[in-house]
């Protein structure tokens, strides 16, 4: 096993564990912490896949902004610390999701995939490349995304603003 493989398997294991913790821990805050961990692990994985810029964004946007927002809401609402369990439904839901994994995995676990990554250039995954793409090929989605965020802002305000 080479280093890359080792790193992958290590990250993968940790990621699965963190994810499982997200869905199975009963304290909301703990869940949020597990999620942060998972997101960071994914960020690390992005690095191994030659996407350094996205790694940074992942850390900033997700682990930074979004998770802070989550924690903020958690604190704001301060719900009951521990969530109730309902055994049967938990088991059923888990089983269902595992079955889903059982059909998703065969879909992607095929041999007709490219075995090796294409030799990466220097630029691959760099901010420059991303920026070029965004403002040439992807300028339209970029604009739409801005509208999307605007809508989200307005919506959030409308929904969450306290009534007079």
């Amino acid at each position, binding site marked *: 096993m080479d280093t890359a493989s080792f790193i992958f398997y290590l990250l993968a294991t940790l990621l699965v564990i963190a994810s499982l913790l997200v869905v199975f821990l009963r304290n909301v805050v703990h869940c949020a912490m597990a999620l942060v961990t998972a997101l960071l692990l994914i960020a690390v994985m992005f690095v191994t896949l030659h996407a350094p810029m996205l790694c940074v964004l992942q850390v900033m946007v997700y682990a930074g902004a979004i998770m802070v927002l989550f924690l903020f809401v958690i604190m704001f609402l301060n719900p009951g610390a521990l969530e109730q369990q309902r055994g049967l439904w938990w088991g059923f839901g888990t089983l269902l999701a595992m079955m*889903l994994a059982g*059909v*998703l995995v065969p879909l992607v676990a095929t041999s007709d995939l490219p075995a090796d990554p294409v030799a990466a250039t220097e630029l691959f995954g760099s901010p420059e490349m991303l920026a070029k793409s965004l403002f040439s090929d992807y300028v339209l989605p970029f604009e739409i995304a801005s509208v999307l965020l605007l809508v989200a802002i307005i919506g959030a305000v409308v929904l969450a603003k306290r009534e007079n």
Partner: protein
Amino acid sequence: MMSSDLLRWIPLIPLLASAINLFFGRAIGKRPAGALASAAVGASFALAFYVFWQLPASGVMRDLVYTWIQSGSFQINLSFQVDALTAVMLLIVTGIGLLIHIYSLGYMAHDADMVRFFVYLNLFIFFMLVLVMGDNLLLLFVGWEGVGLCSYLLIGFWYHDPNNAIAGNKAFIVNRIGDLGFILGIFILVAELARQGVWTLDFAELAKQVKLLSPATITLVTFLLFIGATGKSAQLPLFVWLPDAMAGPTPVSALIHAATMVTAGVYMTARLHFLFALAPATLALIAVVGAATAFFAATIALTQNDIKKVLAYSTVSQLGYMFLAVGMGAFGAAIFHVFTHAFFKACLFLGSGSVIHALGGEQDMRKMGGLKSHMPRTYWTYVVATLAIAGAPFTAGFFSKDLILWQTFSHGAIALWGVGLVTAGMTAFYMFRQLFMVFHGECRADEHAKAHLHESPAVMTWPLMILAAGSIFTGWLGAPEYLWGSRWDHWLEPIFGKVAHHGAVSTELLVTGLTLAVVAAGIYLAYLMYGKPGAQPASVPSGLLHKISLNKYYVDEIYDFALVRPFTLVAKFFASIVDPWVIDGAVNGVAATTRGLSTIWRGLQSGNVQHYAAMFVTGALALLAYYLGQLS
């Protein structure tokens, strides 16, 4: 063959009078309306007589009014014809009809609904004339049904008594049962001929094409037609309506239920003699049915106490004679009996009507008696008619009935002849029983009725007298060979052909003598039991046979039990079980199932968003699993 536009007016005049009275009768007033109706029939009679007079010796007169129904090759004309047979019937219908119209002027004078009565009566004359004048089977059927309608209306004329209305219904429906046979007979006739490329119901045409039909078909057709005749002419087993039909006003009984309409069956067989003649099996059946009916009805008539019921059963019995004649192939004799019977039976009915009129509506003979002195004209005409129906020598009934019995005998149907003979005796008995009970002995009416006893007005008695005269003299037209010979047979020769005479005159005389002896015995017996001073006509003899006879063999009850009730039960089963529960139940069941399914499936929509997500995942799972399954 002659063509004449005149013919259509014979039926049309009564129809017009009927229509005028229908719409304007109230405005005209009762008596003028009655007079108009009578005048219309009188006009018809005059026309009929004129036609009769004009009728060429071997000829037929035709009057094509218009094409009535045409569908594909099937064509029926509204077209009248008069030949010798029709001419006779025409005279009977219009002649007797006229007398009875006149009689009714008196009889119905006090009835509030007299106009309506004459509307019906004229309508009846119209339909009867269509029946006898129609030149095709379908037109005959139109008249056939039309007279049934009028019969229905007139039986139920006094509608406020539910029994009358019920009797009317019974008459119509029983007739309809017969008509089913009739119409099926027509269908077979048309269909069979159509198969051979001939489309006709025209009598003349049928007579020509009858050779195309196989014997079996002819037998079937005639059999079915005869079923129709048993309905209309009150033969076994469909005779049950006629006695009940006496619920109508008495002139109606005389005209419709004695003289004319009920003989339509005989007329029809005579009209289609060329068919019937080719169906010996049917003829045999007709003879048996006729004889049986004659006998059977006579036995019932023996014990009836209602003056009109006796006459009704006697009518059934006499009709039986006519069919006996038909069964022997002696159509001329049958029609002859129709002719004579029309006179004496009309006379009897009108006489009984006169009696009932005088007694203020009383019909029970046990409450009559001794009327001879109070209403002599009625009495003497009644005597004449009674003698005629009993078959006293040289009365009309003597000639016609004797002819039938002789035909039967000479055909070798000895058993049937025997039945006819016995029936003749019984006829004499019950008729004289009636005569004695009504006119002789003590008057058993209550005081109130006694006080009002009176002879009927002239407008009623004159018709009686004319009919009584007819009851004697009409018979002379058909005298046997050993007297002056039959003008009757000669007249009808163009229709039925020459009547063959077999058997020796001596035998014929012997048979006649035998009949007369039986008749005399019957009369004497009646005298002993009812006429002799000291007899107790009102007392009720006991005995099983008497009881059975009095109750008309319980035929109505048997029919009710064996046919009407099961039938009603079936109808009830359909109406209250099959329709609402099975058929509608299936429909409503589908609806209920749908709603039930809806309610059950609604349960999935639990409101729990995580259930929804689970269903979502299940769906996704199923889709992807399907795809993976396709791969392998």
